């Protein structure tokens, strides 16, 4: 289990390296202090070092993870979703998919040796960094590493799993050898390093640090049943997000082509229209005061359905509504069971033991909460993807792109609010069911629900932003048609 976690971190770190802007400060701090301990260590090894932090959270989780106190004690931070997520939305877009797939890969393979492509980017980074102090090795060396690693991985096959740390070490050493072959100067540093620490030692240290974090332990125990990333993929959320990204990227390049081909007044006019469209894409901040508590079921359904009819496309948010409704029914049922139990406790003080069979454990609640969040988010991805496809398909031009953008931004806000409501309801269930539990068991579960709800909200907002180029293209097409008439 812990090998898994440690190696998962390898990947995570690798993905963080790609997005330096978002890299949490703690990471940087740990890294540099480790570097201090083992001076002159070659950059590639340092970079592959696992981070002593909770396993298996997609990168987007970090911003909430920074404020666990807020997550546990109050609702205050929900209000800041709009602000913080909005500003980071575009930055996370590129990494969301990658983040999840890393996590999934990790969980699927139960041993997350960094994928060759990740290592390649790392080594390249390293090459860049090391260039200054003269320890750089040629890119050719880095490429050699790749092929050797993949062979190493393949040839070790199943023993990798049982071998755990040893296998990792083997691969690490192999890598070092190859690097050394590519660059004679590297041998010196390598020699120095094997005296200071072996990879497995490093990993074990990291593991120990990790174990100090109770959060991580509990998260690991419940990971199997309630792994957000895996579930999100299972519900095809990842595929829909990927497909949406493809459509978005293609539209983006088309938009660029069009803009390049235009000039003068025409360009200015188009730019102005596109600016309006972009404005429609800036989400209004959710303000807490306005947040209506306990909105009825019908209201959400009505609102979503109405907003969808405003889009004038043939998709309907039926699936989304079904998922949402069944989750609400589950919560309602839970509350009914609970009140029944209280009644019976009042009536006959000793009967509560018998009720335990009916009572859902906090793990069950947590698993269901994570599952619902993943499914709801996956459905949202599907909905946005289908909507994008239909926009591009050129269905029904009665509505302007800006009009559609406005409706979509309402949908996005509605979904995020819904997620927020869900996380509150689920955590209330957890709190009620877990009164007798210790805080260090209960709190991580509660935090987990908040964390994934917040993740869900960022995926949804990111997906919404991916629709901008798509609507830009449909705006351009509508204009062209108008001009031709």
């Amino acid at each position, binding site marked *: 289990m812990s090998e898994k976690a440690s190696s998962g971190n390898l990947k995570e770190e690798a993905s963080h390296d790609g997005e330096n802007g978002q890299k949490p400060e703690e990471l940087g701090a740990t890294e540099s202090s480790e570097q201090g301990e083992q001076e002159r260590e070659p950059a590639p090894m340092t970079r592959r070092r696992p981070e002593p932090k909770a396993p298996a959270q997609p990168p987007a989780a970090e911003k909430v993870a920074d404020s666990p106190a807020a997550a546990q004690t109050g609702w205050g931070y929900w209000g800041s979703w709009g602000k913080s997520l909005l500003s980071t939305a575009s930055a996370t877009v590129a990494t969301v998919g990658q983040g999840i797939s890393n996590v999934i890969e990790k969980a699927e393979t139960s041993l997350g040796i960094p994928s060759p*492509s990740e290592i390649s980017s790392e080594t390249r980074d390293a090459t860049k960094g090391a260039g200054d102090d003269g320890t750089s090795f040629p890119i050719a060396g880095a490429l050699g590493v*790749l092929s050797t690693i993949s062979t190493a*991985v393949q040839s070790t096959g*199943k023993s990798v*799993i049982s071998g755990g740390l040893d296998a990792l070490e083997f691969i690490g050493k192999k890598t070092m050898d190859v690097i050394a072959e590519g660059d004679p100067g590297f041998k010196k540093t390598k020699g120095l390093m094997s005296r200071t620490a072996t990879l497995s030692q490093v990993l074990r240290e990291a593991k120990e640090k990790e174990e100090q974090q109770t959060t991580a332990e509990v998260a690991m125990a419940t990971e199997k049943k309630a792994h957000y990333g895996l579930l999100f993929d299972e519900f095809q959320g990842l595929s*829909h997000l990927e497909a949406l990204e493809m459509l978005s990227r293609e539209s983006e390049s088309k938009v660029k082509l069009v803009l390049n081909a235009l000039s003068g007044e025409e360009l200015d006019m188009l730019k102005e229209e596109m600016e309006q469209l972009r404005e429609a894409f800036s989400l209004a901040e959710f303000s807490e005061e306005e947040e209506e508590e306990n909105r009825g079921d019908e209201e959400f359904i009505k609102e979503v359905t109405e907003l969808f009819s405003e889009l004038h496309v043939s998709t309907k948010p039926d699936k989304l509504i079904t998922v949402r409704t069944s989750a609400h029914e589950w919560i309602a049922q839970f509350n009914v069971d609970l009140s029944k139990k209280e009644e019976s406790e009042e009536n006959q003080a000793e009967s509560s033991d018998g009720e335990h069979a009916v009572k859902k454990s906090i793990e069950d609640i947590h698993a269901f909460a994570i599952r619902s969040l993943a499914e709801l988010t996956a459905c949202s991805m599907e909905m946005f993807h289908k909507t994008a496809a239909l926009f591009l398909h050129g269905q029904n031009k009665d509505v302007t792109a800006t009009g559609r953008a406005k409706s979509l931004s309402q949908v996005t806000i509605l979904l995020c609010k819904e997620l927020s409501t869900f996380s509150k309801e689920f955590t209330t269930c957890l709190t009620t069911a877990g009164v007798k539990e210790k805080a260090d068991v209960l709190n991580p579960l509660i935090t987990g629900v908040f964390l994934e709800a917040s993740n869900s909200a960022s995926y949804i907002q990111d997906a919404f932003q991916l629709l901008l180029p798509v609507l830009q293209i449909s705006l351009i097409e509508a204009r062209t048609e108008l001009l031709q008439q």
Partner: protein
Amino acid sequence: IKIIVIGKWRLGVGKSCLLLQFTDKRFQPVHDLTIGVEFGARMITIDGKQIKLQIWDTAGQESFRSITRSYYRGAAGALLVYDITRRDTFNHLTTWLEDARQHSNSNMVIMLIGNKSDLESRREVKKEEGEAFAREHGLIFMETSAKTASNVEEAFINTAKEIYEKIQEGVFDINNEANGIKIGPQHAATNATLAGSQGGQQAGGGCC
């Protein structure tokens, strides 16, 4: 491994049925029109290795064609599907094939599928014609029936095997995710796309 299913779909060559048969082992004669792309995934074992096939089932409608093109990227394989009871779906194969070749990796494994082999009495395209077309364009060929499940497993698995062999031969650069292949430590995964010539195109992507 990402596999794309392509095919022209005026009335439906049965791409979505093929996928459903493969992933869920059931047949459902009536499907909603595919919008953009739908997804399916299944684990298979080749050579003792677990491979996750991620299948993108693309819309076959002509009007969706420019959209389905966007999905080709990242597919390691494609199933090009036509309907043996409809000559026109066979005639459109060339267009879909060109599309697929143009918008995807040149090493993409393409399998030609003549679907609805259970409707022998209404056959319009001879098996030999399918074979000849496949030979001419360097494709693998099979006739399937999504209804009776005949050859459905084989179609997907053979495509995956072909991709797997190409990986072993080093034809696919496994370090390039754009090829639709991701390698896990103990298993490789491939994406395959199903393509149907009848009018629908399906693209598939998968990772291992």
